């Protein structure tokens, strides 16, 4: 098969779209690790719940005009609240313990939340339709490219910049950045670090759920999607740098296109190739491409 330019461009766009999905999901993981120091296995579950909740909300808002958008907002906020509850009731009690216990707690949450979703929504394959404005495709260099993907390609960087702005310019953002560096001093300065951690965990959960909500129209919502995504999210976060927001963005930009273009060159080994990148990064720069060496 010959690959002409327009085709390679299309393939690159496919990879970038996927990169933006992974970025949205993994950024939450990265924020939570950066501030709380917890590697959250249950992030995949929050992503799955985001997708399920979107399905549920779409059927709630069935007659309103912006049905899909309301559903996305409602679902991601609901899951963020759930994240807050999880942080308050469970995770909080383990901050002073070793990492292994935190890791295992979040893994326990994977098991519990996965079964809860199965209990509530059953085992059926559920589907959410794209909003009417984003159905169909645009033409790029004579090739069709879905409008929904165009939307995601724009949304990813927008969310990234908005969040960056929030971190840089708002009081909350500054506190979050300070907490990532030195939580004791921040506490000594009179900031309610406990509440800050809850908020950060909620923001992280919100990102995960938003990823799930936005990916809902292009995949099938089903049990097991939590476990499928989490290792990919880990890979992206590790490559970019644990806890580094822009690192996650970069990691996603590497993994997405490498996977899409890898399919052209060695179709069946794309998967192994991604793991190898992860290993190489961990061996040469364990704190990731844009991360800082861990001080704590």
């Amino acid at each position, binding site marked *: 098969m010959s690959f002409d330019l327009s085709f390679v461009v299309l393939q690159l766009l496919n990879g970038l779209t996927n990169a933006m999905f992974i970025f949205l999901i993994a950024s939450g993981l990265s924020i939570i690790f950066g501030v709380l120091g917890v590697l959250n296995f249950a992030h995949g579950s929050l992503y799955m719940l985001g997708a399920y909740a979107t399905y549920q909300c779409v059927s709630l808002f069935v007659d309103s005009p912006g049905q899909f958008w309301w559903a996305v907002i409602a679902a991601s906020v609901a899951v963020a609240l759930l994240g807050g509850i999880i942080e308050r009731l469970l995770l909080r009690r383990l901050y002073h313990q070793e990492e292994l*216990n935190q*890791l295992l707690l979040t893994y*326990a949450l994977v*098991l519990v939340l996965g079964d809860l979703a199965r209990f509530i929504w059953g085992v059926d394959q559920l589907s959410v339709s794209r909003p009417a404005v984003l159905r169909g495709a645009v033409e790029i260099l004579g090739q069709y490219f879905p409008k929904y993907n165009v939307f995601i390609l724009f949304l990813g960087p927008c969310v990234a910049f908005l969040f960056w702005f929030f971190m840089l310019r708002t009081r909350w953002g500054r506190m979050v950045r300070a907490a990532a560096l030195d939580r004791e001093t921040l506490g000594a300065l009179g900031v309610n670090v406990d509440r800050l951690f809850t908020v950060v965990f909620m923001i992280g959960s919100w990102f995960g759920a938003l990823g799930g909500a936005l990916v809902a129209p292009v995949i099938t919502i089903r049990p097991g999607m939590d476990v499928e995504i989490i290792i990919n999210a880990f890979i992206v976060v590790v490559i970019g740098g*644990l806890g580094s927001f822009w690192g996650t963005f970069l990691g996603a930009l590497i993994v997405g296109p490498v996977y899409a273009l890898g399919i052209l060159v060695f179709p069946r080994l794309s998967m*192994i190739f991604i*793991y190898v990148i992860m*290993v190489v990064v*961990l061996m040469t720069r*364990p704190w990731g491409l844009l991360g800082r060496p861990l001080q704590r």
Partner: protein
Amino acid sequence: MSRQNWILIAILVLMGLIPVTGSRYYVFLLTDILIFGLFALSLNLLLGYTGLVSFGHAAYFGIGCYACGLLIKKAGLSFGIAFAATGFFGAAAALIIGFFCVRLTRIYFALLTLAFSQIVWAIVFKWNSLTGGDTGIYDINFPKFLDSRTKYFYFTLAVVSISVLILRKIVNSPFGRILMTIRDNPERTEFIGINVKLFQLLAFIISGFFSAISGGLFAVFNHSIFPDFCYWPVSAEVLIMTILGGMYSFFGPLVGAAVLLYLRMEVTSYTVYWPFILGTILILLLFFFPGGIVGFIENQIKRWRSSK
């Protein structure tokens, strides 16, 4: 001989008498428990004794499975030779992977072990001509001299007992004490002139060796092997066994394996929501019984004694 050793022997004899009850089920369950108990014990050499959280131990178990299975089915070797070689495959893999992993600490160590185990899994899954891909390797029969479940149980009991003995010797030796010193404070251990990385690597290799031995035992016990034995949830499961039993007691992981496997067998008979129950148990464990089952009971006994 110490009292502890007498009790160990008594337990061994008790287990050896299980097949006399005539129950195929006990024999099956106990073989399963012994195999996974050894797997959990070998993980605990890293986890509880050296303080390294490996999140990719399924790799060595899986390598043991496939080494044993492939040597018997594809290379046509006899069971004895194949099984004897199994541990060395695990040790070799642990040497290569461990060499890179011990350079990292804490969460990065865990993530790198995870990444390597995923590579092992992906290779096993994709290398269809050698490993049979998703359908695995099948029809791995009991060897002639162990041609029944009971005989294989005795073989497993012997292998696991010897392995446990060796592991116990190791943790009680000066070497084991150095590992524990590293666990408690790697920096200080480095200062007193001990090559921490070297000792960590050695522990990694020993752990990989015994994990592969348990994998080899399992391959023949199960008659068929699949790529999923190298997949990361298996790593999580053996971690849970270890924590459940208690990572700071030598026999804790074995108890954890026994309890978990027994519970799973019972619970799955009644409900499909086993993951929910396992997750709940794990949460309760982390919050209320951080020392695991054995740690908890030890504490109770201590309290009971001191109150007397």
